[in-house]
C-alpha cells in the first residue's frame, strides 16, 4: 500500500469517564482504499474510539484530522454528513419500511413535493447493483430479509450518504459462513472503489482474511499499528491480552485436584446452539475448577448460558451426576444445584430496586416459593453472615444495591448463589470492572470453594487469572471449543496458540 496522505488522522486522543480513562493517548489513522481492523479486548477502548470518531462523545484531548481538516463532529448525524458512516451489528434501520425507503428515507426523491416511489425504487436497485453487486426486491419490507441482507442495506444507505469512511462494527457476528464470504467480497469491491473501511470483529480468522492493516488497543492505550501480513497471529493475541502479572502475587499455589477416576458432576455431550456455540463436549468434576479461555465473542458466555438453561440447546445432551438432565430453564438448572453469575451484572444480575439483603436471598427464596418465606430475622442473619464473609461494603443490608460499587455488587450476586450451596458454580467474568483488591479476594474465594468440593466453571478474559485458578482449561475460538488443556499443559503460550489458531 502506498503511504500517501491518510484521510483520517487521530493523534493523542484522550477520553475520560468518571473513574475510567477510556482512551489514553490513542493514535489512529486510516487511508482511502484499505480495510483496517481495530482490535482489542473488553475495555480496550475500541467502542469509545468509534464513538469519539462518530461524534457520540466529544474528546477530552488530542487532535482529529479528517480529509486534511480538523474535525469535531457533535453528533453521529454530523459525522455522517461529513462522510463517516457506521453500520452496527444490531441493524439501526426500520424493519417495517421497504428496502428502498430504508436507503433513502429523509432524502427521498420528490416530484412536486410528492415522493416518487418509482424513482426511489429504481435508484435503490441501481445503487445495490452498482456498488454492492446484489439484486434485491427493494419494495419488500426490510424485516422480511435476513440480518445479512439488512446489513447490506445499511451499507447501501451509508454509501448513498456519500460515505468515504465506513465503520463496520461486529458485522459478522450474526452471519453464517456464506454470508460472511459475500460480505467480504463486497468489502473488497468497495475497497477497490476507494472506500476506507474500519472493521471491528472478534474473529481472528476474518481479520487475516480481509484486513490490510491492524491497530491494537489495550486498556485504553495505543499498542501499535501493523500491516496485517507482517503480524503473526500469536503476536496479535499477545498484544491484545497483554500481561498483568503484578496483582496476583499473593495467591496461594493451588494443589492439583485428584485427577480423573470420579464421575464428573456435569457432563455436556455435543451440546450446542445455532448462532451461539458449536457443539462441544465438556466435563466438570466436583472440586474442580474448569476455566474457559478465549477472546470476547468466542462462545464462552454462550457455553455458560447453555449449561445453566438460560438459552435452550438445540442439539446435544447434558448429564448431571451421570443422569441425563434437560436444562431448558434456569429453574431446572438451579434445582440440579447449578448457579450462574452473569457477566452482565447490571442487566442480568442485580435487581437495582431491591436492597442488598433482598438481592442476597432472592434465589433461595425463589427456590422455596412464595409462601415458605424466610423470616425477616433469618433474612437478616443470612445477609449479615455473607456481608461479613465476603466483606461487602457498606456493610448495610438495607442499602439499595444500586448504591454499591461494581465489586461489591458482584459480591452480593456471589452471595446470592453461595447461599444456594450449589454443586456447580458458573462464574462469567466475575472480576470484570472491579478493583484489584476485590479481584484477588474473589479469586481466593473461588479456590477455597473448590477445595470444599464445589465444581466451578470460571470464565475470564484475563488469561493470567484463568491460568492461576483453573485445573483444566477449555479454549474457545470463533464459537468452537478448540482445545482442552490440563495440568502442566496450562501455559500462557499454549493457550494463546490455541486462541490464535490458524
Amino acid at each position, binding site marked *: 500500500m502506498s503511504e500517501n496522505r491518510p484521510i483520517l488522522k487521530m493523534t493523542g486522543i484522550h477520553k475520560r469517564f468518571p473513574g475510567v480513562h477510556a482512551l489514553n493517548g490513542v493514535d489512529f489513522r486510516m487511508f482511502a482504499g484499505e480495510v483496517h481492523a481495530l482490535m482489542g479486548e473488553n475495555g480496550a477502548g475500541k467502542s469509545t474510539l468509534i464513538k469519539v470518531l462518530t461524534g457520540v462523545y466529544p474528546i477530552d484531548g488530542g487532535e482529529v484530522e479528517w480529509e486534511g481538516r480538523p474535525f469535531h463532529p457533535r453528533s453521529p448525524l454530523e459525522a455522517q454528513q461529513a462522510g463517516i458512516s457506521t453500520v452496527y451489528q444490531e441493524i*439501526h434501520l426500520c*424493519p*417495517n419500511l421497504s428496502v428502498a425507503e430504508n436507503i433513502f*428515507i429523509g432524502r*427521498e426523491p420528490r416530484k412536486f413535493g*410528492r415522493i416518487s416511489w418509482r424513482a426511489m425504487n429504481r435508484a435503490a436497485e441501481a445503487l445495490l447493483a452498482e456498488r454492492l453487486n446484489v439484486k434485491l426486491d427493494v419494495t419488500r419490507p426490510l424485516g422480511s*430479509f435476513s440480518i445479512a441482507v*439488512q446489513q447490506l442495506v445499511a451499507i447501501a444507505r451509508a454509501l448513498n450518504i456519500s460515505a468515504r469512511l465506513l465503520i463496520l462494527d461486529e458485522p459478522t457476528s450474526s452471519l453464517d459462513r456464506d454470508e460472511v464470504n459475500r460480505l467480504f467480497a463486497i468489502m473488497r469491491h468497495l475497497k477497490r472503489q476507494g472506500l476506507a473501511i474500519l472493521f471491528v470483529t472478534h474473529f481472528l480468522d476474518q481479520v487475516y482474511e480481509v484486513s490490510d492493516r491492524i491497530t491494537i488497543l489495550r486498556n485504553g492505550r495505543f499498542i501499535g499499528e501493523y500491516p496485517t501480513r507482517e503480524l503473526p497471529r500469536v503476536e496479535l493475541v499477545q498484544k491484545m491480552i497483554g500481561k498483568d502479572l503484578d496483582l496476583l502475587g499473593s495467591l496461594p499455589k493451588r494443589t492439583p485436584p485428584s485427577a480423573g477416576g470420579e464421575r464428573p458432576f456435569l457432563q455436556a455431550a455435543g451440546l450446542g446452539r445455532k448462532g451461539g456455540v458449536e457443539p462441544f463436549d465438556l466435563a466438570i468434576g466436583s472440586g474442580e475448577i474448569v476455566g474457559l479461555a478465549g477472546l470476547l465473542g468466542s462462545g464462552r458466555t454462550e457455553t455458560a448460558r447453555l449449561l445453566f438453561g438460560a438459552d435452550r440447546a438445540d442439539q446435544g445432551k447434558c448429564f448431571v451426576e451421570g443422569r441425563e438432565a434437560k436444562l431448558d430453564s434456569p429453574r431446572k438448572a438451579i434445582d440440579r444445584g447449578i448457579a450462574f453469575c452473569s457477566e452482565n451484572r447490571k442487566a442480568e444480575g442485580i435487581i437495582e430496586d431491591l436492597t442488598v439483603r433482598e438481592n442476597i436471598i432472592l434465589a433461595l427464596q425463589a427456590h422455596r416459593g412464595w409462601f415458605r418465606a424466610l423470616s425477616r430475622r433469618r433474612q437478616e442473619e443470612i445477609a449479615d453472615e455473607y456481608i461479613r464473609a465476603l466483606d461487602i461494603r457498606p456493610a448495610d443490608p438495607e442499602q439499595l444495591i444500586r448504591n454499591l460499587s461494581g465489586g461489591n455488587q458482584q459480591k452480593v450476586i456471589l452471595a446470592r448463589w453461595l447461599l444456594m450451596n450449589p454443586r456447580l458454580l458458573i462464574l462469567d467474568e466475575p472480576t470484570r470492572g472491579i478493583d484489584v483488591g476485590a479481584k484477588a479476594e474473589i479469586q481466593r474465594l473461588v479456590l477455597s470453594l473448590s477445595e470444599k468440593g464445589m465444581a466451578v466453571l470460571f470464565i475470564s478474559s484475563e488469561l493470567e487469572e484463568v491460568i492461576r485458578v483453573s485445573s483444566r482449561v477449555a479454549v474457545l475460538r470463533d464459537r468452537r471449543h478448540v482445545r482442552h488443556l490440563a495440568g502442566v499443559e496450562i501455559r500462557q503460550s499454549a493457550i494463546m496458540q490455541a486462541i490464535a489458531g490458524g
Partner: protein
Amino acid sequence: MVDRKYIPLLVTIGLFILMFLAGSLRYPGFLSTQVFMNLLIDNAFLLIVAVGMTFVILSGGIDLSVGSMVALTTMLSASLIMQAGWPPAAVIPLVLAVGTSFGWMMGAIIHYFQIQPFIVTLAGMFLARGLCYVISIDTISINHPFYTKMALAKIRLPGGSFISIGVVIALLVVLLAVYLAHYTRFGRNTYAIGGSESSAVLMGLPVARTKMLVYAFSGFCSALGGVVFTFYMLSGYGLHAVGLELDAIAAVVIGGTLLTGGSGYVIGTFFGVLIQGVIQTIITFEGTLSSWWTKMVIGLLLFLFILLQRVFTARTARGRSV
C-alpha cells in the same frame, strides 16, 4: 401471490364485505346504497377522529384525548356562536387551531420529557373534558342558520342515495391522510418512528418534529371531527363523545394497524370504522339484539386482530432470525 404486508388489510376488507353480505342475506332492505351511505353519515366524525388516531398509533403512540377534544370543540363552537355571537367563519378556524395546538403541546411533552403517551394524553383527556364544564355544565343547542343548513344539507348521488356534508369532509380527510401517509416525508417518518424510534434518530430523521406533528394532526382531526359532530348533533355538551377514543382505537386496530406502531394503512381504518357501523346496523335491523352486543363483538374483533398481529409479528421476527 399477495404481499404479506397487505394481509391484515385484506382480512379487514374481507370481513367488512362478509358482514355486509350477511346482513343483506338476512334482512330485506339491507342491501342498498343508502344503508351503506348511512354507515358513512352516522360515522363521519368517528372516521375523521380515527384517521388522526391512525397516525398516532402508526408512530407507536396513543391518543386518549380525542373524545374529550371532540366534546370541547362542540362546546367551544356552541358557546362562541350562541353566547358570544361569533360568526362560524371565525369559530371553525379557531376551534381547529385550538385542537391542533392542544395536540402539538401533548406531543411536545411526550417527546421532550419522555413521558408515556398514555399518561400525557390521559391528562389531556381530563383537561379537555374539564374545560367543557368550565364553559358550561349544560347542553347548548345551536340554531345558527349556517349550522342548521350544514346539518340538513343532503348531497344527492346518482342512484337516488344521498350523503351529508360531514361525509364529504370525512372522505376528503381520508384522501388527504392517504396522501400524507404515503407520499410525504412526514408520513414516511411517522412509519419509521413506529418501526423503530431509536433507528429513526440514528438515521437522522426529524423525530421530535414528526412526533409533535403527529399529535398535532390527531388534535386537528379531533377538532374537525368535533366540527362535523356539531353539524350532526347541533349542540355543544360536555358529555358528547364519551368513550369515543376507544371506538377510534378499536377502528384503527380492526383496520389492521399494529398497536405497537409502524404498520398499517389509513384505508384499513376506513374499513375498521365501517365494520363498527355494520355491526350497529345489523343490530338495529335485528331488532331483538341490544346495543351492548356491539361492544362485545368489537371486543371480540379486537381480540382476534391483536392475536393475529401477535402471530404475525412473531413470525416475521422468527423469519428474520433464521
